[in-house]
């Protein structure tokens, strides 16, 4: 562990930044938890430390990654998308191609193996967009573990497809009706469950937040993303990228890809937070840009809070980024300047989502679209000599309903319920034209001129009521 403050790219004791390993990252991190959980966190810390040093555990995990997840994930260059990014080369790390459709499976398999090693038979998880819940339910099915997933009631509506997936996989999905009924409250419920059932149960936390050892453990389980990507970029381009961009909610996919580049001082690390309607409106989930240091869910980090320290509800079109805090290692990287964090509005993200879909035939998750929007900006800044690596952390299947509403891809009358949208799409073959950027879009209600993603005056009004139930 190191509690030291980095100086010029290294820790104060001269060690590389990548050696920082909790419980503290500078002033961030720690364990702000009920005493009842301390023994479980100690047990988990010891179990993970032992397992991570055990070749048998690492081999079992690597085999699962290879034969079940589909690792290594490929690197895809996207030149037609990059044409909108100032001609810079844009490379996508394709975590969306993993089994279950996102980076989440990396962490889940590692923790599920650990659950078995600890002799526990039940896992609980929280989920926002449902990707972590689906991944957890998947690993639980694979490894014969009882699985309960807490999900904010609001999110169960936004992500009905993933709720069905989890239930099909055998998990119990518990809609949480307290507070803002989103991810924050799902975590509260999971922690309550854990306090009461800690002997039999592992809390399979889904991001690099929470009390130690979760931020460090989850980062280690996602490091594979950056390790692979770094080698792949070197192989393809012959040098390191100028910028590594990733979306940041809790921050697990970003930490996974950033970590391999932490000690490469020439590589800029760029985290794109959920700017919602715009940070200036107060309706956003950009906890680093718009928050302040505080304590939530067992860790000290940046968080959205009012003047009394009450958590402020976050807002994002992406349920997966709709979280009012962020992992403590990100807070540290932000405070020290090693990584930069910027907000991307809902509108910018949705435009980037559509642009990648139409130029490259890849429908990204809305979370990942935040990173794509950041890549477009960075590419324009760098110009044709630039190389931008983007972590495409998930695929957009789960977000098709939201996109259909945002872009009015089906008639409004068909969009009352999520199921209706899917039915309409299946029945009518809605919107299967190749509307490329720059070409004339067919006329139709709500059709928006695509091309370069932008958020500007009029964009909200232009959208009208088409926004999803975010």
């Amino acid at each position, binding site marked *: 562990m190191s509690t030291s403050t980095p100086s010029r790219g290294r820790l104060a004791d001269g060690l590389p930044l990548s050696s920082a390993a909790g419980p503290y990252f500078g002033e961030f991190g720690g364990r*702000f938890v*009920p*005493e009842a959980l301390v023994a479980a966190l100690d047990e988990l810390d010891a179990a993970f430390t032992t397992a991570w040093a055990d070749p048998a555990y690492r081999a079992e995990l690597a085999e699962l990654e290879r034969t079940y997840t589909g690792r290594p994930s490929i690197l895809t260059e996207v030149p037609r998308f990059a044409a909108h990014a100032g001609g810079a080369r844009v490379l996508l790390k394709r975590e969306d191609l993993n089994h279950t459709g996102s980076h989440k499976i990396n962490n889940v398999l590692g923790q599920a193996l650990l659950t078995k090693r600890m002799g526990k038979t039940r896992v609980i998880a929280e989920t926002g967009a449902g990707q972590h819940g689906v991944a957890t339910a998947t690993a639980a099915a694979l490894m014969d573990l009882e699985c309960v997933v807490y999900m904010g009631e609001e999110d169960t509506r936004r992500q009905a497809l993933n709720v069905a997936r989890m239930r099909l996989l055998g998990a119990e999905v518990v809609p949480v009706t307290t507070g803002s009924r989103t991810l924050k409250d799902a975590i509260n419920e999971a922690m309550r469950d854990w306090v009461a059932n800690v002997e039999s149960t592992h809390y399979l936390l889904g991001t690099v937040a929470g009390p130690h050892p979760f931020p460090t453990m989850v980062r280690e389980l996602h490091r594979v993303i950056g390790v692979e990507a770094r080698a792949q970029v070197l192989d393809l381009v012959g040098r390191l990228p100028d910028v590594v961009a990733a979306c940041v909610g809790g921050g697990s996919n970003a930490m996974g890809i950033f970590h391999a580049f932490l000690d490469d001082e020439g590589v800029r690390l760029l985290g794109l937070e959920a700017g919602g309607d715009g940070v200036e409106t107060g309706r956003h989930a950009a906890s680093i840009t718009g928050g302040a240091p505080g*304590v939530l869910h067992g860790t000290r980090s940046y968080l959205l809070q009012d003047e*009394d*320290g009450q958590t402020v509800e976050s807002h994002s079109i992406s349920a997966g980024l709709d979280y009012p805090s962020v992992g403590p290692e990100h807070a540290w990287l932000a405070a020290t300047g090693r990584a930069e964090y910027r907000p991307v509005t809902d509108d910018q993200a949705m435009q980037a989502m559509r642009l990648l879909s139409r130029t490259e035939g890849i429908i990204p998750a809305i979370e990942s679209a935040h990173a794509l929007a950041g890549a477009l900006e960075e590419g324009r800044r760098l110009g044709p000599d630039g190389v931008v690596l983007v972590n495409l952390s998930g695929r957009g299947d789960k977000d098709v309903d939201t996109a259909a509403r945002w872009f009015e891809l089906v008639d409004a009358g068909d969009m009352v319920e999520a199921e209706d949208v899917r039915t309409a799409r299946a029945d009518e073959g809605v919107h299967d034209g190749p509307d490329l950027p720059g070409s004339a879009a067919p006329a139709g209600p709500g059709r928006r001129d695509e091309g370069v993603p932008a958020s500007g005056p009029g964009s909200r009004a232009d959208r009208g009521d088409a926004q999803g139930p975010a």
Partner: protein
Amino acid sequence: MSAPTVPPAVPAAAGTSRTAAALDAARARGGAALVGYLPVGFPDVATSVEAARAMVGEGVDVVELGLPYSDPVMDGPTIQAAAQTALDRGTRPRDVLAAVEQVAATGAAVLVMTYWNPVVRYGVDAWSRDLAAAGGAGLITPDLVPDEGADWLEASAAHDLDRVFLVAPSSSPARLASTAAACRGFVYAASTMGVTGARASVGPAAEQLVADTRGAGAERVCVGLGVSTPAQAAEVGAYADGVIVGSALVRALGDGGVPAVARLAADLVQGVRP
């Protein structure tokens, strides 16, 4: 509200614990102390203060006033809902300090139960200063373990406040010892692994936990989580220095108002005083 059945606690001299004095007074009477919890602001600030003062009037020895928080992970549904009501009605930390002042005026030792972030946001030293000025005895911190509490250990010492940390059935002997050493006033023994809320029976681990915590060096140990009836209070009071009741009082307040709180408090007091 009936007149207090016990004389107001003697204000503790500097450097001594007001909470410990209240517990010792109960022990001198031959019984355990009753610690009653209510969140400030439920159903509104004035009523919560009135209810707390009514509890003291019925003989509650130590009052635990909750600071409503948006993410109360140690609380069960009853207290969580009450805290949310308080927040929805605009209850703020300064209302809690004002409530402390009014309840402390009865002579009872008044502890504030608070999650840690509101204190961090207020400023640990500023909060301690203002709590002491309001006549508060100290803090109960459900999500702050002594390991993370350096600021609070320092501020509580500077402002002569009690520090009540929790121990749980899962606490190791080493943690029982370090937590007992960090506490001032009493050690809060969580009767069971779980959150607040009335239960049919108090966890069987509670008596052993009290014994172990005493064995680890604690002078005074109170038991909370799950106590709701006079019979349970009597059972726990037989082996603990104090019995902490929360959800049952909150429910009484919600269902029957201040008179119901007073009735339940009186019954519970009978339970801890043989």
